[in-house]
């Protein structure tokens, strides 16, 4: 059964370009985005019995949507079909843990040294593998001491002095796992004379959507929409985020997938490099010092989908001394929580193989990427440290 308003799948002209770009189909039995999306959607409309279990294999990297010349929302169709038609167990502890990034973060940042101590141990990893199915080979993200929010209010009380302001949607990763990125962002924006403001926020919902907790995702999304649109209405601040996936969710998935009205904020949200790029273009550039590093840049799938890669590359190219190698655009395979599931672990490694090899060939000193989970995946599979473009920009700020 279908509502005739939602017929993106019908625009598919079967050109099959998406299949060529699907990283999952290349290494598995996944029949490809065309077959799983628009083609079998016609059958699911006819009878929900005809749903294929191979839908599960889709990692939601959205490369098919980038490739599609007919603007079919292929990944959205597959995501929606997954949670609408595929049977799931009611209680899934692993998925629950993986998708409640904020709950886990809040807990872990309280006892971060203990948590980090344990998650580094192979015996703990083995038990995690045995009991809940998180692959034991995987490096688990480390937690910070306390939340970024707390540190921010403590360390940056004087943001009001700047003439310009933005709202920073920090997302879970900055809040719980990577304060350095948040601090660097404040540093970069402040040197552009832009003050940083935080609002009350919840997890953007990307891991919830991926794991099928749609009602919870909707709740979070509505909370974020309300809180962001409230401050935007009051002050007309732009909203920025350092996470490409969060940005994509806030901007597009809330309306496309969750059917929520985010029109008040969708045009106000920008991925951070686009925001800084606009400042630079209007002449607001901070003084830079050279960053003498050889860096390989990996473009994350969701930033590609957002159309934001050119801005990141442009910014990086402006940094003096930075020897930038732009890697061939490929999926790293982790796709958020996908690579943290034992049933997809091998797949996720296979998908990323080409990327890891090309990083090794580029022989950089560091790798730069915009996405937090891509960074995890690359750090685990190569010997290089991975930084966010904002980290590099902060290194270039001449004080």
């Amino acid at each position, binding site marked *: 059964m279908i509502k005739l308003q939602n017929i993106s799948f019908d625009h598919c002209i*079967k050109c099959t370009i998406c299949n060529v770009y699907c990283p999952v189909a290349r290494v598995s039995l996944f029949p490809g985005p065309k077959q799983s999306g628009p083609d079998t959607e016609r059958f699911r409309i006819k009878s929900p*019995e*005809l749903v*294929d279990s191979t839908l599960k294999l889709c990692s939601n990297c959205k490369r098919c949507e980038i490739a599609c010349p007919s603007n079919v929302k292929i990944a959205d169709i597959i995501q929606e079909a997954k949670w609408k038609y595929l049977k799931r167990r009611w209680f899934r502890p692993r998925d629950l843990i993986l998708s409640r990034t904020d709950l886990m973060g809040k807990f872990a940042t309280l006892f971060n040294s203990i948590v980090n101590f344990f998650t580094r141990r192979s015996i703990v990893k083995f038990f995690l593998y045995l009991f809940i199915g998180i692959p034991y080979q995987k490096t688990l993200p480390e937690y910070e001491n306390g939340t970024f929010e707390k540190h921010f209010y403590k360390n940056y009380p004087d943001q009001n002095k700047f003439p310009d302001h933005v709202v920073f949607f920090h997302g879970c990763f900055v809040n719980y796992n990577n304060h350095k990125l948040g601090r660097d962002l404040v540093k970069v924006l402040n040197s552009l004379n832009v003050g940083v403001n935080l609002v009350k926020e919840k997890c953007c919902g990307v891991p919830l959507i991926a794991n099928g907790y749609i009602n919870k995702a909707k709740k979070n999304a509505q909370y974020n929409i309300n809180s962001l649109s409230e401050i935007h209405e009051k002050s007309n601040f732009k909203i920025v985020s350092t996470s490409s996936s969060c940005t994509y969710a806030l901007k597009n998935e809330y309306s496309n997938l969750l059917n929520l009205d985010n029109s008040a904020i969708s045009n106000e949200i920008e991925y951070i490099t686009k925001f800084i790029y606009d400042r630079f273009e209007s002449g607001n550039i901070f003084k830079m010092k050279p960053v003498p590093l050889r860096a390989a840049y990996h473009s994350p799938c969701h930033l590609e989908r957002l159309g934001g890669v050119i801005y990141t590359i442009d910014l990086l190219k402006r940094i003096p001394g930075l020897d930038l190698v732009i890697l061939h655009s490929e999926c790293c395979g982790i796709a958020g929580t996908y690579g943290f599931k034992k049933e997809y672990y091998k797949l996720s490694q296979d998908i990323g193989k080409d990327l890891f090899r090309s990083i090794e060939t580029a022989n950089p000193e560091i790798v730069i990427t915009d996405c937090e989970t891509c960074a995890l995946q690359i750090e685990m599979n190569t010997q290089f440290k991975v930084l966010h473009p904002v980290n590099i920009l902060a290194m270039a700020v001449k004080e």
Partner: protein
Amino acid sequence: MQRYETEVIVIGGGATGTGILRDLSIRGIDATLIEKNDIASGTTGRNHGLLHSGARYAVYDLESAQECIKENKILKKIARHCIEDTGGLFVTLYHDNPKYHDLLLERCKLAGIKASEISPMQAMAIEPNLSSHTLKAVKVPDAVIDPFRLTSSNMIDAVERGAKIFTYTAVNKIITSGNDSVGIECINKKNEKIEIYANIIINAAGIWGQHICEIAGIELKMMPSKGSMLIIDYRTNNIVINRCRPPADGDIVVPGDTVSIIGTTSKEIDYDKIDNCNVDDDEIDTLLKNGEDLLPNIRRTRGLRAYCGIRPLMAVSGKVKGRKISRGIVLIDHKERDGMEGLITIAGGKLMTYRLMAEKTCDLICKKLNRKLKCTTHKLPLPGSEKKIPAKQTIKHFSGIPASTVGSTFYRHGQRVHNILTKDKKNYRLICECELVTEGEIEYAIKNLNVKNITDLRRRTRIGMGPCQGELCAYRAAGLFNEYNSTSPEESLKLLKDFLEERWNGIKPVFWGDGLREIELSYWIYQGLFGLGDFGDSDTEEN
């Protein structure tokens, strides 16, 4: 020249013709069927595939309605895999006369059709895309039937019981001895003459029956009336939606397999135009406009193709002047009517009543042959429908093969799915990605279902009937013809070209929007990549 002898010759491979062939072979009477094209290529395959509950006829033609509901119940049992029991709705929109609604309920009761009134809210819950202008709704036991599968199943059963079928063989002459017809002379695609002798010849050629009578020197006047239909790319509704008003153009939307069909128009045409009639632009407009009344967003969908069929209505009296057109069954023993022994014409009727028509015809044949054999077709299920097995169970049985593929193959072939699918990867790889037709299904069809070209293959399997209309699958199928049917590469290319030309013929009336973009790509592959448009031209020049 080939010569055959049999007891009964059936002319016409529609639902009625194959139905008669099956009935005869079940009764143990030797029979041969002659069809000038493929089975179900005439009117049988050119309707919207509604399994009437009879409600549509109840108001004006109670007898037809009673016939319908009786056959409806029988077919739901014997032809399960050709039927999807969707149910049907009769909806009264705000500008329709509400009295018709009451009349319908009353007459349905009289005809024995289980019709129950439901509230507009309930109707909207069943069918969310239904117009919000719905005032009243009646639920009736309508369903959908696939005429290709139905005809093909009748054919399989008859052939397995020893009957013979010649497709692409046209009747040239009725051979007579004195006043009696004793056989036919026909000619096949390879221009070979075939003579078949029999005690009785059945003219079940439908609208083409007039021609058959003509060559037998008998006058029989058909009243051809064209009906056009428009196919929507996917199911806009999962239940048959009828407009609750006196029958008119575009007042029904039928969900058939993966698509929905808006039907139908009605235009009288001349008999000499029946072999090349096309859908007119104004018919498309009428269908879309009326379809939009029922399902308001239907214009936003993709029109897949349009097609038309000719209703085999006939004037009952030998002369035209009566103009007494009946939609009931007309069974003519030409011995009584024209003094020609051995020729029987069966005409009129509907797809719905094909089995009844076959039964009546065969009863007459038995009487003439002096055999006391009873009809059992109302009890004996068609091949594929033997057991009532839910799709879920079959999908489970073939675990490992994608559920959508197993489900679709089961939907199309019923229990015969076990003769088609194996867990061999080559077997279940997809040839037609839009309709999920596997290589195994194509191999099965080519080897067992009397398939001569890709268009025939389409009627047996739905290949090329999806959104891309043969854009990709036609090429693969042509290759498989070469593999399984030992056609030469040149012959396969010819089949490919013919098939795509046939597909495009039906797309032409709906050249807009996504359909147009699709066909641009198709054409690019066809001509830009392969240059197929020029294939065959050089041969004719040389000749």
